[in-house]
């Protein structure tokens, strides 16, 4: 597996660090990690960066994760980037909504590095 550039979107700086740490513990070889505090910041960052993978929270101020994924699909250069939602909102309806918006995976907090690996590895191998 080649090195992975990841974008982590979460309004909590602590949670962004935990997700990055979990990716590394899961054996994902990260070459670069970018961070954004909400969907709007993430869209702005994607104007100049092209990550291989995006992990995004759902409940965030300014622009939530679902709206971010919807808008991401309209960005020509970014619409193919796999997005995995990581959130405390684990209800079935939220999972369905996230996947219908274009997310490729869904991880509910709390999570283990092994769960991260199961969801993320197939996406970055592609």
């Amino acid at each position: 597996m080649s090195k992975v550039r990841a974008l982590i979107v979460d309004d909590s700086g602590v949670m962004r660090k935990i997700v990055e740490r979990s990716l590394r513990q899961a054996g994902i070889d990260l070459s670069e990690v970018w961070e954004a505090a909400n969907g709007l910041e993430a869209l702005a960052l994607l104007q100049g960066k092209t990550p291989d993978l995006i992990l995004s929270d759902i409940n965030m101020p300014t622009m939530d994760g679902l709206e971010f994924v919807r808008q991401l699909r309209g960005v020509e250069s970014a619409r193919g980037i796999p997005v995995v939602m990581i959130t405390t909102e684990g209800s079935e309806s939220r999972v369905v909504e996230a996947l219908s918006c274009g997310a490729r995976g869904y991880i509910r907090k709390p999570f283990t590095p092994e769960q991260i690996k199961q969801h993320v590895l197939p996406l970055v191998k592609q």
Partner: protein
Amino acid sequence: MTHNTGSTTLAETLQQWVVLLEIAAKEVFQMMVGGELHACTTEDTDCGDVTAMVGLAGELCGLITIRCSGDCACQIASAMLGMTIDTLDGGALDALGEICNMVAGNFKAKVSGLADSCVLSVPTVIRGSDYEWHAVGEGVSADVLQTYNGCPLRVKLTVHQ
């Protein structure tokens, strides 16, 4: 979800929920902190002066709080982030807030019917012990007293009727 029908009173239901709350908290600590919570055998324990809280709104209205000492919050943050945090700064407080958020989310996922009908507030963390809080309407509460690395930690569920 029903919490006041038939012969089951809210107080009885609350006791059942507290069991789920304890399981939810233990899972969060195992998975995100990499440590175990243990039952605290001492009652009337002063848990400390850091309180994280997350509100519940919708079919179940109330509050979930986690109270511990500043030292305990630093230990939790250090374990979560994989680095030494020895001062109770924003990072340590944020970490405790995130723990409370995940405990609340994990708890509502375990209560049948709540996952879709109850939403969580953004976590808030209070430092200090000289305060009282009051919620509109009457409420009942129950808690579980645990220890993390020997530090007492109280996880509390308050439900507004």
